[in-house]
């Protein structure tokens, strides 16, 4: 029997706000334990939550970017359970009435273009963190660090529209790119800023009813998502083929073994006793507010990709590389705006700039050559003031010093020589010194031509205009 996997993903997106979702504490990562806390995020008696407006804006942005409807009225609910990292004994989340509903993302791959539905996006607070073993000043034991408690999260829940591990990864990458593009998440999967739970089930091909699903937790990289889902699909198929039955349960992925193992079954599942949080009034979002946020929505990668090809005439490959990262795309666009020809700018951004950034481990934001300077350099090439080859030398100098390209060209005497008289003189000298090779050329060995070009360029210290050199040399050699 052939089986069809059915997958749905729940993604937690940690938002890049300066302060927490229900209090004014900082959200900065890595501070000393419990140094970023207050009565609200500590769950002290009498403390009350107040919603961070920025979190709502970010949720609206995420909703608009994933084609969701923004609910004019949404409600925060309490999810009740006991755990030492949960100071109030409940997590404030949204349940029956989330802020965003009914969106989708289109994913591309060997399957062509496929639409994956997004059921909902809701806002919630994160829990704290338990620290086991040695705690400074406490000896061995378990400690609670509540710095992360009350950090804002979005939970993005997909429809069970995904049919393979590759589709799941494509969906995740797309969502990841969007939230990073929007500037609402740093996308750091290792630190848990973007994390995913996968609901996986299998059913016989052609069946109309989904199989029993298992929820896989703790998959914190694209690679692990693929591994975990593939493992789980195989496990379930084998189980069924051996006459067993898949049980509804929560499973934990182990990145070391690549396997999933049972964490808790349905019978141990929590009854979270959700109910509307009476400390927070229903969140009412006006159409004006949505429109305002819509106005701040940046052009998304999909739209950029299309525009780079259609309006700027870039090949699909260039468009894809440039739009993969929002900052890179913005740099490129700034070059075009400053007057760079699109294709030339694309070549330089994907070529020299990316090479240097990688060499020095820098982000595009830290690029010492501004789009204006790069455009000035490209203009020098265009005008024939310098050759493309010299330009690379000039670029390295610009990178190191941040100087204007024209100044560098002047300072170092790098202006391209197009003066036929001067070039002719060099050619004559080279030919005179290499009569043997001249004879070889004239005897039909045309490969020697390259030797002469090299000699002339070297004699001119690379400044001779290659086009002029080629033309004159050919004329002279042919006699």
């Amino acid at each position, binding site marked *: 029997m052939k089986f069809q996997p059915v997958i749905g993903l729940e993604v937690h997106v940690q938002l890049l706000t300066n302060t927490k979702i229900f209090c004014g504490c900082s959200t900065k990562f890595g501070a000393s334990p419990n140094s970023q806390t207050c*009565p609200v995020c*500590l*769950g*002290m*008696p*009498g*403390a*009350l*939550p*107040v*919603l961070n407006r920025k979190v709502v804006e970010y949720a609206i942005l995420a909703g608009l970017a994933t084609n969701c409807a923004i609910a004019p009225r949404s409600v925060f609910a*309490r999810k*009740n359970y*006991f755990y*030492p990292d949960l*100071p*109030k*004994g*409940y997590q404030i989340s949204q349940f029956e009435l989330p802020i965003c509903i009914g969106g989708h993302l289109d994913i591309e791959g060997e399957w062509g273009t496929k639409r994956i539905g997004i059921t909902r996006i809701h806002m919630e607070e994160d829990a704290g963190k338990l620290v086991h073993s040695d705690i400074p000043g406490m000896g061995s034991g378990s400690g*609670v660090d509540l710095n992360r408690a009350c950090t804002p999260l979005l939970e993005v829940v997909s429809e069970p529209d995904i049919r393979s591990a590759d589709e799941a990864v494509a969906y995740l990458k797309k969502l990841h790119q969007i939230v990073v593009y929007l500037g609402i998440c740093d996308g750091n999967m290792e630190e848990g800023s973007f994390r995913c739970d996968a609901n996986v089930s299998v059913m016989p091909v052609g069946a109309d009813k989904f199989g029993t699903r298992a929820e896989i937790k703790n998959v914190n990289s694209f690679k692990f998502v693929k591994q975990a889902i593939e493992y789980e699909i195989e496990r379930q198929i084998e189980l069924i083929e051996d006459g067993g039955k898949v049980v509804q349960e929560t499973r934990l992925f182990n990145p070391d073994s690549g396997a999933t193992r049972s964490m808790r079954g349905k019978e141990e599942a929590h*009854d979270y*006793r*959700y*109910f509307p949080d*009476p*400390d*927070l*009034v229903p969140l009412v979002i006006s159409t004006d507010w949505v429109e305002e946020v819509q106005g701040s929505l940046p052009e998304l990668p999909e739209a950029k990709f299309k525009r780079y090809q259609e309006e700027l005439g870039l090949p699909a490959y260039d468009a894809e590389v440039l739009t993969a990262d929002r900052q890179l795309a913005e740099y490129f666009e700034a070059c075009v705006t400053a007057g760079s020809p699109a294709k030339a700018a694309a070549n330089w951004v994907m070529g020299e700039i990316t090479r240097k950034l990688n060499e020095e481990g820098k982000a595009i934001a830290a690029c010492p050559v501004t789009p204006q300077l790069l455009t000035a350099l490209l203009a020098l090439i265009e005008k024939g003031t310098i050759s493309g080859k010299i330009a690379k030398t000039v670029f390295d100098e610009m990178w190191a010093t941040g100087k204007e390209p024209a100044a560098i060209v002047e300072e170092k005497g790098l202006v391209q020589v197009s003066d036929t008289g001067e070039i002719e003189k060099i050619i004559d000298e080279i030919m005179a010194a290499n009569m043997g090779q001249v004879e070889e050329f004239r005897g039909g060995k045309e490969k020697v031509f390259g030797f002469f070009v090299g000699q002339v360029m070297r004699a001119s210290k690379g400044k001779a205009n290659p086009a002029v050199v080629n033309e004159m040399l050919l004329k002279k050699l042919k006699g």
Partner: protein
Amino acid sequence: MDLFELTIHELHEKLKKREVSSVEATKATLARIEAVEPKVNAFITVTTDEALKAAEEADKRIASGNIDILTGIPVALKDIFLTKGIRTTCASKILDNFVPPYDATSWLKLKERGAVLLGKLNQDEFAMGSSCESSAFGPTKNPWNPDCIPGGSSGGSAAAIAAQEAVATLGTDTGGSIRQPASHCGCVGLKPTYGRVSRYGVIAYASSLDQVGPMTRDVTDCAIMLGAVAGYDPLDSTSVNMPVPDYTKALIPDVKGLKIGLPKEYYIEGLDPDVKKALDLAIETYRGLGAEFVDISLPHTDYAVATYYLIATAEASSNLARYDGVRFGHRTSEPGNLIETYSRSRDEGFGAEVKRRIMLGTYALSSGYYDAYYIKAQKVRTLIMNDFLKAFETVDAILTPVAPTPAFRIGEKSSDPLQMYLSDIFTIPVNMAGTCGISVPAGMSASGLPIGLQLIGKPFGEETIIRAAYAFEQATEWHKRKAAL
């Protein structure tokens, strides 16, 4: 008259004229506390040193000419208000050792105006009760008769006024917890409209119902205290951003033409004859003052108590989850594993009534019961609210009893929770509707216990009920009676 017997406005006049100092008034009140506490047990914590220090500060402030109506006035707070650096127990063993790191907004407002804190007052544990008997610190006695309960849950706040152990106090009212003890102890207690006073720093029992309010010797003091604590608080999302009127401007002894509703559902068979007599007399008094009475109906009154015990307990079951022995409060000395730490700490820390309500609320929210209990209760709550809104289309205020009987005897109802719950039958609907109500002294029972009347106002209609209460007070002598201790 002794210094501890004065009202806010009387003491303020003396402080302003420098006839007495705040230190003198504070010392007199502290001495009074020491003298009568063995009989009353209104306080959980008396903050003698802090009080004297604050009184000295107040006197300096007064000497510099910067006197506010509350400067130098000795007050006390129900032990549900967080007081920075001062133990706050909520009358529970689970918070026996809890010293808060911050002040409740309402207390902070009084403090900033120079009020002097005498201490923290007894109450039912986590404000769950109508008799002050569920306190982990022993019951408070009614100053009018020590065999009787003072009412609850703000029993200490009412008893301290009646026993002259504080000039004014703050209480909280979730289902009648200000008005019912005020009625039983013969003082004035006002439950403001939900959202009128910040709940920040007030230990939550049922968040959608809890509201802070004043308990005072007379209506004038009530208006002063309400004005001091009311107002929008950015730290409480449910507080309402509306200007606070000067409530003392509503102290006009004139109810001519005021339309007062008498809901037939509140004048029932089984109402204690003394209570009925007091109400009848009060109606006559109001008639004499020119008020008009209108018979009205609040048809869903019968469901209020049942609805309350689903909504309040559901919220409580969640609100009280934070008392887990992890970060503050009582932790069992035999923790065992995590689950045992939770269950033992909570078992040892919470009293029987609190456990009963947590169980009830957990059940009401559980999967499979949620729709039948919690959701249905919310729908009934809307109906109760609509009853009031409809009634207020034709009347300005509603006059009812506060409680079906005067204060009952200690222990009389403690074995019968349902009987206890029914003692809030006339106050609970006001919380369900989110509107305001005041209890004013209106009579004495044959056995010498005070009886209050309740005036219910429109949402944010505190001025109307203050005016009506003031007019009644000025026309009667009930508020002048003092408990003989």
